[in-house]
């Protein structure tokens, strides 16, 4: 394992410190317990928006702290959810009295730790609502598993709920918008090569030279099944089919198409995937109103991508377009 790190144990701390230094105009870093807040938080009268989870998915979540998106991000160890003693003070730090929405990706560890933190925050008088993100159609038997995982859709939930909070929506309204995004977005991913967790030192799984893993999550965990390598267009169709089937989109509906890189795949390849995904959606009579292509929710240096489709309505589109100023997503400001 070769990585630009000093010590596997200090990866998250040092990386978040560097992030804080590079974006001192946007965020403050609380070193211990570790969390990141928007400069000037809490914003008086505004609902606080907080997310967090294991590290290794950068720019998620700290990269989305700023105007029009998150008020706080709570980074855990690599691929390990943060703990209540981080989540609680971060929640308190961004509560202006209007309450705080926790955006939680549906993994057992995240759910349990955020649940405990929410209970503790409520005990301290802060109103907390949770938006659980579970957009991963790779998980088929959600009854017999921990349920669908939160993956690419998380970025869209954070952007759109963030815009709702910024325009002054109340706690229930922001929660409703976040859940609406989650209900209308589906994602499916593929890995061509695994990533290596710093403290593990070896790749999370092994793929043969001619194999790809379909239905991968964002934690280096294996996916739905392995298949022999195919070309980009075929893989794109494999990823899109369950997404479209699950969303039950009708011809003429408007969507946001999000092709996300897992960290180690060149941008040029993501655009090759986008190209065919756009053709498939057009074929289905769908209108791509908005798009996003890039490394927005990653799994360290994993090679692969995910495709998310979000059904848009006019309100969601307007909230997507609303100004945002974060380290990783910025427009209109």
């Amino acid at each position: 394992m070769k990585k630009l790190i000093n010590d596997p144990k200090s990866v998250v701390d040092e990386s978040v410190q560097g992030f804080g230094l590079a974006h001192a105009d946007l965020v403050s870093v609380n070193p211990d317990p570790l969390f990141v807040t928007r400069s000037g938080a809490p914003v008086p009268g505004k609902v606080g928006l907080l997310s967090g989870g294991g590290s290794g998915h950068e720019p998620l979540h700290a990269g989305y702290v700023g105007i029009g998106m998150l008020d706080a991000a709570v980074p855990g160890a690599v691929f390990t959810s943060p703990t209540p003693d981080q989540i609680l003070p971060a929640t308190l730090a961004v509560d202006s009295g209007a309450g705080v929405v926790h955006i939680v990706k549906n993994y057992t560890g995240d759910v349990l730790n955020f649940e405990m933190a929410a209970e503790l925050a409520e005990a301290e008088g802060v109103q907390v609502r949770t938006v659980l993100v579970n957009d991963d159609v790779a998980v088929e038997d959600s009854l017999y598993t921990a349920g669908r995982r939160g993956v690419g859709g998380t970025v869209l939930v954070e952007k759109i709920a963030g815009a709702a909070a910024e325009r002054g929506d109340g706690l229930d309204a922001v929660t409703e918008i976040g859940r609406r995004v989650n209900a209308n977005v589906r994602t499916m991913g593929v890995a061509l090569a695994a990533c290596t967790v710093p403290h593990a030192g070896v790749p999370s799984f092994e793929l043969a030279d001619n194999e790809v893993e379909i239905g991968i999550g964002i934690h280096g965990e294996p996916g739905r099944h392995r298949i022999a390598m195919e070309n980009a267009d075929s893989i794109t169709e494999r990823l899109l089919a369950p997404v479209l089937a699950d969303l039950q989109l009708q011809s003429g509906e408007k969507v946001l198409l999000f092709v996300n890189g897992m960290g180690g795949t060149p941008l040029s390849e993501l655009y090759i995937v986008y190209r065919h995904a756009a053709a498939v959606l057009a074929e289905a009579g769908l209108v791509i109103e908005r798009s996003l292509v890039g490394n927005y929710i990653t799994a360290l240096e994993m090679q692969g991508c995910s495709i998310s489709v979000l059904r848009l309505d006019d309100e969601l589109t307007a909230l997507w377009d609303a100004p945002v100023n974060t380290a990783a997503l910025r427009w209109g400001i």
Partner: protein
Amino acid sequence: MRTTLDTEWAIAWLQAAADAVAEHRVELSELDRAIGDGDHGENLDRGFSAIAAKLREEAPATPGAAFKLAAMTLMSKVGGAAGPLYGTAFLRAATAVGEATELDPVLLAGALTAARDGVVLRGKAEPGDKTMVDAWTPAVDAAKSAVAAGADVTSVLAAAAAAAEAGATATDPLTARKGRASYLGERSAGHRDPGAASSALILRAAADTA
């Protein structure tokens, strides 16, 4: 034949558990790498070594206080699924033993039961879901049977540890239905559940120090 276990034992247990987790750190992460995300050993080691460090600084006055120290440390240091689950387990055990300075077989079995119930309450896993519950449940059953049969504290813990180990081994063929491993579906069969394995280690440490 020891009739009760005291604070000294509780501290010794936690220290032995920390040693066992440190020793098996890589192995536990290897198990997790096969059907999860490869961090279980690292996560637990972060938590238990923090417990050991705290115990070098402060000496809890009762077994319950020791369990509470462990619970708070695990909750704040471990993260992931295991942090809240083990944290809740030790917190429930602390509540179960209250202010007692000496734990007799009944109190001990009660503490184990409370711990297991805490895990189930938090994680909502059932036996057979291929989780740490599959180590804890047979351990609790064995401890209760031992108590009913009039065993002493050492034998109660020895029975629990052996049952936990058997329970962990028995997770091998199971298909996971909770936690990260559940995403693998049938591909999770043929691997031991890491949380069940670490539970067995921790309960073995309890028996070895009794």
